[in-house]
């Protein structure tokens, strides 16, 4: 048994299924994802943990799209410089997107990978969904 499995263990874990967390449009066209806990993850993840992740993502996207003095200033400055300023610096939105990428990587490493899950950055899905890939559970002794 051990020999037949060892080669497979060296390969990448197979994808068992994917769950997609859709956009939540209840507050308009801003980027928000539904915090409802999908049933497919019930066996793998804490509801609280999941909601916290999604909520943080939502907050980060809200920060990116926030209308305020800072974003107005950036917009006006960009307009005045004929948008050439973006050759030198990146927009606030892009900065937050990088922050989000770091956050997701961090979450994956700390929480999701040990549970055989993988979060995909929504930007790679066109900000349409948060894709959670569920890998099949190969751990010996998993009573699932």
């Amino acid at each position: 048994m051990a020999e037949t499995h060892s080669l497979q263990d060296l390969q990448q874990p197979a994808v068992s299924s994917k769950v997609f967390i859709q956009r939540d449009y209840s507050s308009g066209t801003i980027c928000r994802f539904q915090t409802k806990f999908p049933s497919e993850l019930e066996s793998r993840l804490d509801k609280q943990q999941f909601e916290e992740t999604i909520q943080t993502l939502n907050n980060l996207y809200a920060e990116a799209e926030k209308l305020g003095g800072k974003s107005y200033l950036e917009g006006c400055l960009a307009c005045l410089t004929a948008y050439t300023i973006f050759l030198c610096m990146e927009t606030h939105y892009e900065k937050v997107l990088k922050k989000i990428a770091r956050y997701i990587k961090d979450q994956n490493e700390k929480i999701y990978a040990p549970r055989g899950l993988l979060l995909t950055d929504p930007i790679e899905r066109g900000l349409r969904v948060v894709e959670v890939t569920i890998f099949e559970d190969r751990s010996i002794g998993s009573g699932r």
Partner: protein
Amino acid sequence: MEKFSLKYKVLHLFGNSTTIIRNVANGGTGYRPPPRTKEVVINGQTVKLKYCFTCKIFRPPRASHCSLCDNCVERFDHHCPWVGNCVGRRNYRFFYMFILSLSFLTIFIFAFAITHIILLAVSHRSGFLNALKDSPASVLEVVVCFFSVWSIVGLSGFHTYLISSNQTTNEDIKGSWSSKRGKDNYNPYSHGNIFTNCCAALCGPLPPSLIDRRGFIQSDAPQLAPPTNGITMYGATQSQQSHMCDQDQCIQSTKFVLQAAATPLLQQQSSEPVILTASPENGGSLPGRTSLTLGGPCTSLPLGQPTPPTSTPSLSCHEAADMLPIHGHGHNHSHPLQEPVAHHHFLTPEEVPSPPGMLHCGSPLGHSHTMQAGFYNPASQDSLHEDSVRGLVKLSSV
């Protein structure tokens, strides 16, 4: 049994209590189901999200499909024939500044052309008509400018109104938020006051493009993990799918042959979409213009089987553009109905596509947001990527 559990899962996924997915009977070959819609409540207003058969996504609110650009556009304003592109979420402020500066320019030219003629008339003393004869170009200029001023300044004024009320041209024309529709009808996207609306539209944060226009598509290659004991279901459906694909491919190629025979040589262009959709049936690479718009990161997606086994074989259908962009300065577009973009499956209402997109923002002042759709179906998850790849061009925020 499997089918039911799948459908249940998908329904559960869309478990938002305010989401209503209208059921559509899934007939056999030759039957096109009526358009599907999804309702969401946005800031108190119920909005219907339509499903785009071309782009294979449920359009986000305020998005619309442009048949001229052949994709869905976020916050669709209108398709401008003068610039040859759609005006949407990411380029609206530039468009507005363009028409604003253009109106200043036309007023400027108009004023100075008139001044020139007047000065000539005054200096000549031989009469106004002689002055006009001296400089016939000015006359022409004045005439052209006169009409331009009215149209451009009118357009600028119109867009200023739209910005202040946070509406799109599309919404204004349709009267989506007009009080004439109902007492309780209001614009859920408006920020409340004019100043905030203006600032948001003109100086708000600019999201980057989600499309890598210079990337190349990787040819589809099945990258499924070999079926192990844990995924026998997966393995079983594979053969089923490939069988389905052959059938679909046969139907598609037959259709294409018939179509190619029927259409004259000049219209070859229009039959392209048929080719586009034929190849994904068996996971072939996508030719045509879509290939230019897929990004590098795409390559990481396994592009596998297209259709889930539960769907019916493909049919062609027309994507009727659901809006008529009547340009502010009086140009009407007629949209030719798009050539049948053959879809290789129909969705049962339960298989509501959950759209995974595969995009990457790469282009500098790029204008497009693209999104795709797919199916949540554990047995054919790669069809999601398949469809997502195909739909990659389909939603832009321009």
